[in-house]
């Protein structure tokens, strides 16, 4: 689906993967974690309020 992140399955089996790949993979895991930490924060109420208020305005007004 559109919202589904393209996650690689975690490849285990250290013998099969060379060291550099393992490290790149580790960085990748960390990077996603970093991003997901923010994604998982609760959304401030402000966002929904703004959207609701804006919605009540006749369309076309800025």
């Amino acid at each position, binding site marked *: 689906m559109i919202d589904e*992140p393209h996650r690689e399955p975690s490849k285990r089996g250290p013998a099969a993967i060379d060291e550099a790949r393992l490290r790149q993979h580790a960085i990748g895991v960390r*990077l996603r974690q*970093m991003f997901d930490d923010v994604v998982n924060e609760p959304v401030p109420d402000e966002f929904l309020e703004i*959207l609701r208020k804006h919605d009540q305005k006749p369309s076309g007004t800025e």
Partner: protein
Amino acid sequence: MAAAERSPAEDLAFKRELVGLIPHLRAFARTLTGDPTSADDLAQDAMMKAWDARASYQMGTNMKAWTFMILRNQFYSEKRRSWRQTQLDQEAAERTLVAVDDPEAPVALDELRQGLGMLPPEQREALILVGAGGFAYEEAAEICGCAVGTVKSRVSRARRALHAILEDGSYERDGAPAGDAMQAILADAERLSTIR
């Protein structure tokens, strides 16, 4: 606005999907701006722009990529208006991403954030979209308005550079010996992949 042509049901479906994307917009905005407050301002602007432009969105296509493109365009057009902000970018980038208030956050997170901050912005952006945002190269190319091959090469250069930065410990750090960052990242990745 053409929004009038849309049915209330369509608007509702659009809004529901848009609301679901807010967390992702916030995360992407934070990687661009550096601090959580202006990131949320940016994410809110992008959200409203997306809402206003809803008539031009084809339901069923990739709304996440579409909103990310709006957010990115918004960010760069604001930046063009204020050149003086440019100098702050590097500094901001280093604070970027996770100003998550988590005392348990592993050291490696900080190191990675700093490493990211050292990458050229276009490489950082490409790596974040593909490596963290879950976008395909084609989608990232659309978001950034460049060729797929350009995104591929940016991501690959970013990965190599980040790896080198973390291995060398060539980023600014307070005393700790170089090489620790990579070890910490490896340990974290190990831990995370066992959790998942």
